[in-house]
């Protein structure tokens, strides 16, 4: 994510020798938009922390629930920050199933993910894909992809799914959220899903996987529920507030495993007044 220091017109790094978060996620989600280097890391983590697959699936499922929730509240335009490789169950698929005129802008820093998205979405005039570092809210919001498609007089659904745990405190994740919040019209919604746990829940067996992941893919910043709640500053959290991911408005009781109360991720949706 070094493009912040880079002039905007400079090309991003396309280094296939390095795993990419987007492609590793794709692999865990059952996709084949990935390379050996991605799968090697993904498999290594999976071996050490089998639960990772469940975590990834849950974030994806949370995305689906959050989008459907926002749709039910009348949201028809979405900004998906850190969208990754568009595998299946993407925002525009979910949204346009409800309202074919729903509009979506995907933003990711991964040049390959964005190129893939653009290739698939060619001709879909209600979807734009933008390659930018989402930490630079000003650049995202002023881009033609966003300005040309989203109407800032109408509420917008902003999605930060499995995104902010890649932003260390030093880079002020709350500040980044605030940068987006400040320009959102009232009635807009923000969904955040975030890897995390409360004190005492960390399994030392995961240390190895974490370091593999940190080294090979990206630094992970686990946060507590409270820390995630703080990110919603300026938003009113909808029920049930920030919750363990499986416990946030589950679609059926069977979806809630017995250990859901210790699931190592949180999620929540807030509404800007």
């Amino acid at each position, binding site marked *: 994510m070094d493009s912040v220091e880079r002039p905007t017109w400079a*090309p991003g790094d396309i280094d296939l020798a390095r795993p990419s978060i987007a492609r590793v996620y794709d692999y865990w989600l059952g996709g084949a938009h990935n390379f050996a280097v991605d799968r090697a890391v993904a498999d290594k983590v999976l071996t050490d922390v089998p639960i990772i697959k469940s975590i990834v699936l849950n974030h994806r499922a949370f995305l689906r629930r959050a989008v459907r929730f926002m749709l039910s509240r009348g949201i028809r335009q979405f900004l998906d920050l850190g969208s990754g490789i568009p595998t299946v169950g993407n925002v525009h698929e979910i949204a346009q199933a409800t309202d074919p005129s729903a509009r979506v802008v995907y933003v990711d820093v991964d040049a*390959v993910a964005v190129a893939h998205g653009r290739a698939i979405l060619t001709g879909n005039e209600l979807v734009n894909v933008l390659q930018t570092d989402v930490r630079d809210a000003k650049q995202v919001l002023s881009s033609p992809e966003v300005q040309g498609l989203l109407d800032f007089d109408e509420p917008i659904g902003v999605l930060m799914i499995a995104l902010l745990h890649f932003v260390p405190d030093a880079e002020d994740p709350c500040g980044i959220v605030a940068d987006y919040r400040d320009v959102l019209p009232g009635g807009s919604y923000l969904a955040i899903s975030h890897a995390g746990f409360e004190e005492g829940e960390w399994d030392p067996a995961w240390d190895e996987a974490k370091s593999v992941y940190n080294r090979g893919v990206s630094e992970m910043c686990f946060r507590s529920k409270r820390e995630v709640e703080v990110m919603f500053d300026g938003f009113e959290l909808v029920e049930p507030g920030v919750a363990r991911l499986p416990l946030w408005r589950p679609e059926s009781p069977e979806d809630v495993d017995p250990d859901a109360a210790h699931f190592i991720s949180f999620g929540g949706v807030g509404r800007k007044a």
Partner: protein
Amino acid sequence: MTEQVDHRVAAPGRSNLDPAVLAGAESFARTWATAVIGSSYVPMTRAEVAEHLQALTEVLVHALHASPFRTAPGYEIGARLVEAHFTGTDTLGRTVQLLGDDLLGELGIQPDELMRSRLAALQGALAAGYARALRERTLAEQEAIRAAVLDARDQAEAALRASEARFRAMFTEAAIGIGIADIEGRILDVNQALQDMLGFSVEEMRQYNIRDLMHPEDGGSVWRLYDQLTAGECDHYRAEKRFRRADGEQVWTHLTLSLVRDDHGDPQYQVAMIEDVTDRHLLQNRLRYQALHDPLTGLPNRALFLERLGRVFNNRARHRAGLCYLDLDGFKVINDSLGHDIGDQLLVEVGRRLDHSVSGEGKLVARMGGDEFVILVEGSQDTQDIVDVADRVLRELESPIRIGGHELTVSASIGIVERALSGTTAADLMRDADITLYWAKADGKSRWALYNPERNAKEVARFTLSATMPAALERDEFYVDYQPLVRLEDSTVVGVEALVRWQHPEFGRLAPDRFIELAEETGLIVPLGRWVLRRACEQARRWLEEFGDSAPFVSVNLAVRQSRDPELVRDVKRILDECSLPPHHLQLELTESAIMGTADEPLEALRALSEMGVRIAIDDFGTGYSNLAYLKHLPVHELKIAGSFMEGLRAADEEDAVDVQIVSTLVQLAHALQLGVTAEGVETPSQAKRLHRIGCDTGQGWFFAKPMKPEEIDELLRR
């Protein structure tokens, strides 16, 4: 992102199924869903998954019972699982196992040979369909991601090409000169602006090393910093630097040199940004010239002169230097009477003549302002060098200057200072030249004066004295001594002359000749004289009390200025009254010039004093020009013959006949006018004897007594 597909297969003839079978299918689908959920991400709720799988289960039910039996539905189910993104391979294993274990039982189908074989065939077809669909999907996705990589790379390369093109354009089109060289200084590339600036083509420039661009006038720091930069010790520096153009002209530039390092941080390239500041430089030179030159005469101005003078002292390349500080005489009159325009033209001509008469290395003519000019001569041999310059200048100014129909004759006064540089400063030199110019003016103008340290010291002392005199009077630093006036006939002390002294805290005891003249100049003589008068009268009163009729009168000198003071008579009367001193105990001494040269009023005052009973004496008689005819009309009682006439009467063995004749004539004259005569400066017994013989009444001088304290006079009187 896959196309939007409805993964839920509509069960054909669903309503045809027996409700019991339907319930079984529903139950199986739920089990199936539980088994596969979590094996991969499917964008469906659990209920949607179950519903989807139930539809597939119903397809299976139909397929099991179909006639003729076909495996195609199994194949299709496998494909549809992949299509719904049940791509985790666990899905297939669990599905095949579940079909074999549970399906027939759940549906209430008798597991006979036929059904088992049909089920096995469908399982195989499902696995084959799944495998094929997954393979296709995988290949498609692999294809897609590779295409995305290529796209992204294309875009990145396009961006890179665009950025390179932009950089190239920036380099080529920049108005500032840019050059790139390797770390050894070999020039690799230069842009058009730099080629234009220096007049060399790229090819020519590439032949050069940076060091070939060294200019003889470069500051030492330019190349010192260059060495530091190429050594990697600094990353950039700025400097003013001159370059020689291909056509031999010079270019002044502002240079910024930056070091480019490789990935390891080692110096790799150097990039020079060079801005042509020649115009600015020339402008600065012009502005500097304007700042340092007098616009009227074009001569260097005060600032440049002082700068040069400062340099003379800083460099000390020469041992001596001289200054002529010159000021036109009467320039103000010309300016006021003929106008500033004529005055200005006169200054221009004077400047021209000065510049003309004083030329050569080490000499500088500057206009200091107004009609003041200064000539600096560096490295003079001796004072005569500067005197020659001053003479030349005065001669040069002698011929009349013709301006606008006027023929003007000007002269100048010049103060000259010439000395060794060690032990003096520029400020000293300037100040002394300025003082000396003042002397030249005071000495009569149209001349030069040479600085003289004794004269200066004296003037400084005079200045100090005159400045401190008023305070001294208040602090009682003055006192009065008395010198007896002795009657020659019987050596009786008949009077005493009051002589003021100054006990100066710094200079010690000062005689009147050191400060009376100053007091006259400053006007302080009036209060000082009044003080002396009062002090003398008080003393005379004391003597009167002690010695009665034999008490001496006091003779007090009256300065010219005092004699013209309208308050004189009143002051004298008040003092006499306050001291209760009879007027005839006071004698006032005035010089010839004070009495003779005066208008009526002072004479009136003297008459008034005389009528009051105060004695009037003419001091130093014979040294001035007395109108003898006038003398008899003056209210005078005594003549004091100047001590200079006593010289010829001094020796014991022989006398100067002329002096004797003069003195006796003066005595006769005085007596003819019924005036008393006092001889001053009597120092020998011979003088006293001769004066007595000549008929002189009174004597004064060291032969009788030196000036002394009043107590000493007391003792003298008591004897």
